[in-house]
């Protein structure tokens, strides 16, 4: 029996110029060129689309959900966020230090 399995390709879809490519799913295909065709048929039947990327699933390296340490912050890094600051909008003029 012929293999109907083939490889899988992850599909990234850009709905309009200027927008990011977003992951929308994956397709089975015998080669990248067919993967683009399958991705068009599957994910661009009606929604706007100006560009599609396909990437072999096996070429995607991903983090492990089971590894809680990968994204853990070793200490408070709120200074990286605008909300991490609370300087007032107005201050009382201070007296000149003489």
């Amino acid at each position: 029996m012929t293999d109907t399995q083939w490889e899988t390709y992850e599909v990234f879809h850009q709905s309009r110029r200027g927008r990011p490519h977003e992951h929308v799913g994956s397709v089975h295909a015998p080669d990248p060129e067919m993967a683009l065709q399958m991705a068009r048929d599957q994910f661009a039947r009606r929604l706007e689309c100006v560009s599609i990327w396909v990437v072999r699933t096996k070429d995607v390296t991903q983090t492990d959900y089971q590894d809680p340490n990968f994204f853990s912050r070793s200490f408070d890094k709120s200074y990286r966020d605008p909300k991490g600051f609370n300087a007032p909008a107005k201050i009382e003029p201070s007296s000149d230090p003489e």
Partner: protein
Amino acid sequence: MSEQSHDQKLAEFESRIAAGDKIEPGDWMPDEYRQNLIRMIGQHAHSEIVGQLPEGKWIPYAPGFRRKLILLAKVQDEAGHGQLLYRAAETLGKSREDMMDELLSGKAKYSNVFNYPTPTWADVGVIGWLVDTAAVINQTMLAQGSYGPYARAMKRICYEESFHIKQGYDAVVALAKGTPAQRAMAQDAVNRWWYPTLMMSGPPDKMSEHTARAMRWRIKTKTNDKVRQEFVDHIVPQIRALGLNVPDPDCKFDEKSGHYRFTAPDWDELRRVVNGDGPMNKERLAARRKAHEDGLWVREALAEKAKRNHVA
């Protein structure tokens, strides 16, 4: 990483679900969760694939070019939904090829509703209207489920199914506004699809063994009876608004509960049809097998092309 016991992992898994978090491929999950989802998503995928057939038969005979294009688009959607769902099931470790083999060999189950015949054009309209409304109510519920890839697939599918309902309703309205013969044709289709559509949501809660666990793990977020009641409450006023009848003299609005009461379908018929003994099961599987065999040369040609490109 320290080794957790099964109980610790289970507790973490359940608290994640209770918090409304999604489970993703690669997460630890109990084997019963995995197997339950593989079976459910697989059956759902098969239903989409087999679901092409009852209406697909009408593509050459659709009344007019516009209806033909609409129907083609709808049937193409079903094929696409099947593929989306096979991919979602594959993230749980079962291959599409295995699922395909199980469908073609008759081992896998799929929705009861596709095993009934479609003798008239009105069936196409009524399937889109009634069957797809029931499907969307079920799938909107499933889109709230705990397994990320399935929930994501459901969102996309619901969006497309809303077109299916619209086109079905539109086709039925055309008949309901037509000649007495056309109205009779619409009524006859509603009569034949009513009970099979009620059965789609599955056996009643009191007969369905895994409901409690499926709800706790958010494999389902509403019980079969709840989904069925939602469908009835939604569709009965629509049917009557078109001057058509619900083929159940006991179907009445109950002021006290705020719901329509209705006669339960024949659960024995549901069991028979799902287990392969419905009016069209044999034809459906034979048509699927033939399509699979007829498509062999395409798969071979694509594989050959990929091989040559690889060598070059």
